[in-house]
């Protein structure tokens, strides 16, 4: 589904990703871990098509299409969803109006029937309920005045409605207390299916107790330096990253 080959990317001219390769198949859950500044968020933003994040070498294909040639909205319509590390507040644009536009445009591009407003509202309320978010939040400005946890749950709520084929969750777990983490994990797990894939970018092994990954990768210095099964996360939890990044430094030397 997602094929990243020898990806080099710059942020505002500075090279952050230096030859990253990753292959994600339908039905899989991958976790990308790594120390601060290793390029985790850059990878998420490059994949979603953020301005100033530029691919300088290598290739990324998603459902067989070259991502670099697609606008952010085209990537989303193709089934890519980025759960933001810091969801932005948009005063004056209501959550519901935003969801309506997102669903209308995404569904139209995917050749799906448009949802009538009653169905849309019902689905939105259900999605809110699933992530323990009061339906009143639908009327408020997008993320406006939401707490950190509410913002993250709002991300998952959007994901549930948009039903992406690839969910890329950028530190969706950071800043969450254990209850909120469980709610978020439950939402993500409900989306797991043989047609979908999930990539979790995270700092903490804790999330992986609730969303059990098929594969764990360690990102350091802009490359994946180690991949393994779910047990790798536990090893990182007890040993930290130094034993790996030390190797990488030696390799690079």
């Amino acid at each position, binding site marked *: 589904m997602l094929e990243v080959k020898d990806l080099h990317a710059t942020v505002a001219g500075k090279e952050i990703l230096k030859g990253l390769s990753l292959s994600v198949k339908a039905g899989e859950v991958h976790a990308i871990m790594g120390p601060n500044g290793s390029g985790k968020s850059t990878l998420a933003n490059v994949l979603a098509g*953020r301005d100033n994040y530029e691919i300088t070498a290598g290739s990324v294909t998603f459902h067989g299409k070259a991502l670099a040639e697609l606008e*952010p*909205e085209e990537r989303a319509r193709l089934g890519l969803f980025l759960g*933001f590390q810091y*969801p932005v507040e*948009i005063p*004056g644009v209501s959550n519901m109006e935003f969801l309506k536009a997102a669903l209308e445009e*995404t569904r139209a591009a995917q050749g799906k029937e448009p949802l009538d407003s009653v169905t849309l509202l019902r689905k939105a309320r259900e999605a809110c309920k699933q992530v323990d978010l009061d339906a009143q939040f639908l009327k408020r400005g997008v993320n406006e005045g939401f707490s950190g946890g509410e913002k993250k749950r709002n991300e998952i709520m959007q994901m549930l409605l948009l039903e992406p084929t690839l969910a890329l969750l950028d530190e969706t777990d950071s800043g969450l207390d254990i209850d909120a983490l469980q709610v978020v994990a439950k939402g993500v797990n409900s989306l797991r299916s043989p047609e979908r894939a999930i990539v979790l970018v995270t700092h903490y092994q804790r999330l992986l107790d609730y969303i059990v990954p098929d594969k764990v990768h360690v990102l350091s210095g802009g490359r994946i330096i180690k991949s393994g099964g779910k047990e790798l996360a536990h090893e990182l939890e007890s040993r930290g990253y130094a034993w790996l990044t030390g190797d990488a430094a030696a390799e690079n030397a």
Partner: protein
Amino acid sequence: MVVHAAELKQAAIQGLTHVTGADGLADFRAHARDTLAAVAFPDRKTEDWKYTSLKALEKDHVRVLAASTDTPALPDLGGTQVVLVNGQIPDLDSLALPAGVIAQPLSSHQDKATTDMVGPFTALNGAALSDGLLLSITAGADVDGLIHIVHVASGTQAASAHPRLVIEVGSNARVTLVEHYIGSSPILTNAVTRIDAHCNSQVTHYRLQSEGSEARHIGLLEFELARDARVTSFQFMQGCALRRNDVHAVMAESGSDLRMKGIFLARGKSHIDNHVCVEHRVPNCESDQVYKGIAGEHGRAVFNGRIHIHDGASGTNAELSNKNLLLSNTAEIDTKPELEIYNDDVKCAHGTTVGQMDATQLFYLRSRGISEIDAKRMLGTGFVNELLLAIPDDAVQAWVTPWLADALTEGL
């Protein structure tokens, strides 16, 4: 060719020689012609016109139009319509007005034609005035529905129209007025509107300016509020070849309350200049102004908001906010609050900002499958949304919402 201010004035005066009008306004016109002869037309050195040049005006633009017989397509807001084509007042006997509303030619009450502010264009309006419209709301009347006054600019050649509208709202009366300017003509509309809100009256006023991009519009809007009068004015204004709006409000008696909310847009190569002045002359009045501006492409917008609190106006509460959004690097917005306060016992707050569309917000919307155009339109609408939501009349809101969406999409 750029016409010098003095030449424009000469052309305006010469153009008046064949203007005739209602006898009842003869003295008023003569006085306005004297004033016109005495005042200078603004140029770049005129402080009040620093950001707005008259280069969009040719000499022909000050030539007064003959009466038009056009019957244009009119927007329907569901109220009582009064239509002025090129400033010409309609046949007042044929108007079906709701109870409590009386329409008369202004020439029947020459004394009511005067304004507080008299600049060159107000003087030109008076000098060129054949007749104006005087609407009186009788004391105590609670007028049903909207009074929808539609000003149509008609004609394909450069010329000018000079509508003058005086509205007197009697004591304890309540009314909703819509001043609506339409038409795709290149003529100069030089409009003067004065609204007198008498004791304890309640006025909801809308000013909708949606003429085409070729229009030239210079307008003065005056309010005078008597004791305990409450006026709420919504102003939705679209830039054009030249638009200059002067709003002058006088809190003339205690207890009066004025709220003004405006949205102005300058897209393409359009220009819009708002000069708003609120004068607190007496104690214990409140005024609140919230204006939001959006400029894109090569659009240019100006906002100058002045609050003048006189010596005797203790207990005044006055606020002014002007926030602006720039959609491109080539657009320009100049905003300037001016406070003149001669009393210590007042509350007065003001704030102005100019910002750009937030790239992070734009990316967030697009990352959810929303196209760039729609995302920009949503953010633009979101920027002014608090003002849209404040519109109390559904028919007006139903007009403003698509108008704004179209204006925001233009050029995206």
